[in-house]
């Protein structure tokens, strides 16, 4: 299982749909994608993790790095995730307080806070 990435825009938001496993081997691809988006001027990102099967601390690190990059441009990085096993990793690392986590892409796109 590798990592799959696709992007689309909804209004001023860029949706990054991630699938597969985010670990030490695949995380650099996600990092490149996020860096590229920010470099191209996309500062409001929604990372859709509904099709992520596995996430480890390397993946968390990349998401934190992405958040730092968009914040440098007054941007936002929102996550979409309903999977308990993935949410658990955010909870035990305290990152639920750092990332806005939504239950659907529509909800994330509509969010403005």
């Amino acid at each position, binding site marked *: 299982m590798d990592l799959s990435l696709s992007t689309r825009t909804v209004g001023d938001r860029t949706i990054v749909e991630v699938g597969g496993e985010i670990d030490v081997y695949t995380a650099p691809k996600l990092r490149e994608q996020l860096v590229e988006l920010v470099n191209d001027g996309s500062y409001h990102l929604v990372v859709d993790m509904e099709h992520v099967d596995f996430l480890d601390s390397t993946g968390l690190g990349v998401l934190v*790095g992405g958040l730092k990059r968009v914040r440098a441009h007054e941007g936002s990085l929102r996550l979409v995730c309903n999977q308990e096993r993935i949410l658990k990793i955010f909870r*035990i690392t305290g990152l639920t307080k750092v990332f806005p986590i939504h239950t659907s892409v529509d909800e994330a796109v509509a969010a403005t806070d």
Partner: protein
Amino acid sequence: MATVELLFSALPEHVRTARLVAAAVARRAGVDEAVLDEVRLAVGEACTRAVGLHMSHGVDAPVRVALIEDEKKFSIEVGDDAPHPRASGAVSGAGVPPVGAEPSENGHGPAESEGGALPPGARGTAPGQSAAEEDEGDGEMGLAVISGLVDDVEVSADENGGVIRMSWPTAPEPVLP
């Protein structure tokens, strides 16, 4: 001898293999299905950390994973051959308290904080990674995840290498009529 032993070259692409093997052996050993995700994540974190240490120290030796099935528990030991500096204190990482990470009493000296006074991410960065990526460092966050996930975990290290030991209870054999 361990039930299953795995040696793999310290490369990121092999960490997934270690996760799959560990989960398969854990399932066979009777670890609860609901806990297998934790086993998979914890062994992945331990192997990721070992790979990072070997790469950053230029260690050619493989990373060692021992999967041990005992009567009432299933244990995993992930060993690295990277030189760990003498340091004091228990496991630390990303502000998460070191759950269950007590100093060892097995002759390996006190459980050492890999980073010492260094910030998370300052260690375990593989060659070729730019300084800009250090803010996304995963070395210590990995230990934090393990500490948060696994109740029974022990980290020990000296100048010759380190070992992360983790264990989970296994379900008792079903009673036959």
